[in-house]
């Protein structure tokens, strides 16, 4: 089959870091992907990434980067920070902390009025045509600011009707607002649920504010969990897709989250996102100050793996800010300050957005076709060998970032059943100080991907390549600008061949660090 050559730049200026000329060049040189295996399993045609989802659910999630791992390579989202107030206190959150260079939930650079937010959405949607989702995630709780949240939805649903609306809440006020949420056709709601046992909850939530009273300790946690479960059931009854976010806090709720997973699954949650605790003393949070550690990469993966049964697990969450803009791995919020947005003369062009998105769909389909074709070459493979591969990418599902420019690596698990996205590791270090030396930089990256057998890059210099080799990580640039999953499968096939021929000896890799500390959206 011939590879499609798609010029996304012909319609709009994507400016999302994908070098389209380079892609086209590479595609032209590419000899076509997997012309063998004509008798493989039945093709699922249009279902790029659909997997075993029901068609009506796939329709809801397919362009939502926070609900579909596959979509997050292609589609962008934005959050507007219209909801500063909160109704609970969490030990991993400190509302006094306000660093413009920090990227994590609960942090924003400036809050917006609903009117400013609506203007910003139009400005971003016109600049980034693959931006399909508008979320309200704080920096407090959207439902502790119901007037501002729903006013924003009202304005946007009028001016940009093609944009999906979603919100993320702690759930305390959710039962009071489910009907309003349904009325705005919000079909994605995320609830942060860290426990279903008030004794565990008392260690995470010092207090809640509910019905004009501050509750503390176990009593507070019991009210919170009751309201969360009630809200989840009400959403499910109305057919609203619900994602559950859980923060993994080692020693407090790590084992308990298996029970949380069962509880939310039985109440109809669609997707479970277990995230690592972000905790550093400089954040001034209770957990940061008392030395509560976050999980290691392998601890997180083991918990995610153990919860992965009938319920989908989300592993591509970037724990982004409440004013983030762009693809999940990037943050373009600095381009869209209130000052800049108010000065923009925005014309919302629905047709050109649609045209651009149809090209994204073609590219996406080509990615899925390439993966499927490559997978057929693994048919009948019986090996138990599993390896992790880190990938430097700027998006679009391709190996298209230079090693030295990567601010994160996407992690794929390669096995006889194919390539599976299992996480990502951020490696940006600029705010940590003292890491300017190239040697230190490489050391930090190696710590972040130490559990990986190989790292795929578009390009890499001789020095970092040698450092990686010394750490036992194969630096691979032969898949530059190719599709990630296709390349992962091809590498794995070669890896197995090399084990059989005795060229390499397969060994277990160690654990890796999840980056903590401040972040600059460079």
């Amino acid at each position, binding site marked *: 089959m011939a590879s499609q050559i798609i010029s996304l730049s012909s319609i709009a200026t994507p400016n999302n870091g994908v070098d389209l000329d380079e892609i086209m060049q590479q595609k032209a040189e590419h000899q076509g992907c997997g012309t063998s295996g004509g008798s493989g399993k039945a093709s699922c045609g249009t279902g790029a990434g659909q997997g075993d989802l029901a068609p009506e659910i796939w329709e809801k999630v397919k362009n939502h980067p926070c609900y579909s791992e596959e979509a997050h390579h292609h589609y962008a989202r934005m959050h507007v920070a219209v909801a500063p107030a909160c109704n609970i206190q969490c030990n991993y959150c400190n509302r006094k902390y306000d660093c413009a260079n920090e990227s994590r939930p609960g942090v924003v650079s400036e809050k917006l009025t609903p009117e400013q937010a609506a203007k910003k959405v139009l400005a971003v949607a016109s600049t980034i045509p693959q931006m399909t989702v508008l979320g309200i995630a704080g920096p*407090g709780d959207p439902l502790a600011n119901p007037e501002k949240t729903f006013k924003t939805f009202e304005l946007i649903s009028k001016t940009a009707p093609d944009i999906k609306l979603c919100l993320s809440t702690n759930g305390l006020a959710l039962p009071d607002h489910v009907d309003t949420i349904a009325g705005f056709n919000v079909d994605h709601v995320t609830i942060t649920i860290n426990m279903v046992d008030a004794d565990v909850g008392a260690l995470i939530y010092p207090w809640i504010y509910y019905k004009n009273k501050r509750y503390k300790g176990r009593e507070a946690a019991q009210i919170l969990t009751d309201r969360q479960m009630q809200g989840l059931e009400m959403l499910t009854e109305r057919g609203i897709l619900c994602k559950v976010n859980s923060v993994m806090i080692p020693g407090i709720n790590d084992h308990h989250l298996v029970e949380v997973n069962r509880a939310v699954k039985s109440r109809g949650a669609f997707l479970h996102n277990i995230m690592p605790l972000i905790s550093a003393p400089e954040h001034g949070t209770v957990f940061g100050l008392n030395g509560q550690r976050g999980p290691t990469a392998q601890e997180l993966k083991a918990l995610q793996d153990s919860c992965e049964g009938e319920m989908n697990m989300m592993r591509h969450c970037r724990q982004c800010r409440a004013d983030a803009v762009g693809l999940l791995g990037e943050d373009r919020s600095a381009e869209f300050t209130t000052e800049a947005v108010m000065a923009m003369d925005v014309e919302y062009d629905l047709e050109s957005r649609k045209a651009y998105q149809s090209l994204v769909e073609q590219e996406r389909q080509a990615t899925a076709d390439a993966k499927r074709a490559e997978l057929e070459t693994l048919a009948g493979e019986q090996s138990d060998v599993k390896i992790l591969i880190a990938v430097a990418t700027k998006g679009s599902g391709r190996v298209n970032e230079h090693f030295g420019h990567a601010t994160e690596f996407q992690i794929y698990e390669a096995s006889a059943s194919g390539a599976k996205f299992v996480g990502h590791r951020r490696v940006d270090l600029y705010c940590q100080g003292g890491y300017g030396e190239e040697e230190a930089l490489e050391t930090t990256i190696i710590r972040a991907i130490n559990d990986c057998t190989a790292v795929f890059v578009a390009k890499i210099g001789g020095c970092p390549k040698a450092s990686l080799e010394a750490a036992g990580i194969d630096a691979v640039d032969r898949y530059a600008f190719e599709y990630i999953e296709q390349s992962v499968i091809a590498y794995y096939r070669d890896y197995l061949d090399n084990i059989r021929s005795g060229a390499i000896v397969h060994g277990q890799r160690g654990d890796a660090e999840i980056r903590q500390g401040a972040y600059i959206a460079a």
Partner: protein
Amino acid sequence: MAFKIVSSQCTSCSACEPECPNMAISEKNGTFVIDPAKCTECINYFDEPQCVAVCPVDDTCIIDNNYPRYVA
């Protein structure tokens, strides 16, 4: 008597504003302030001052000793 908001502590999150039964709280110069003429310490309304109960930063909504205690 009244409560006041320590402006250096205020995160300007606005949580207190709608909870005040006396409409005594408003935004001023980027943070929130309590009008002492309107504040009743929530006496006769609630068991505890609402601004204190909802504020995310401890010791931010405090008694203003420049005013005598409110008498219902």
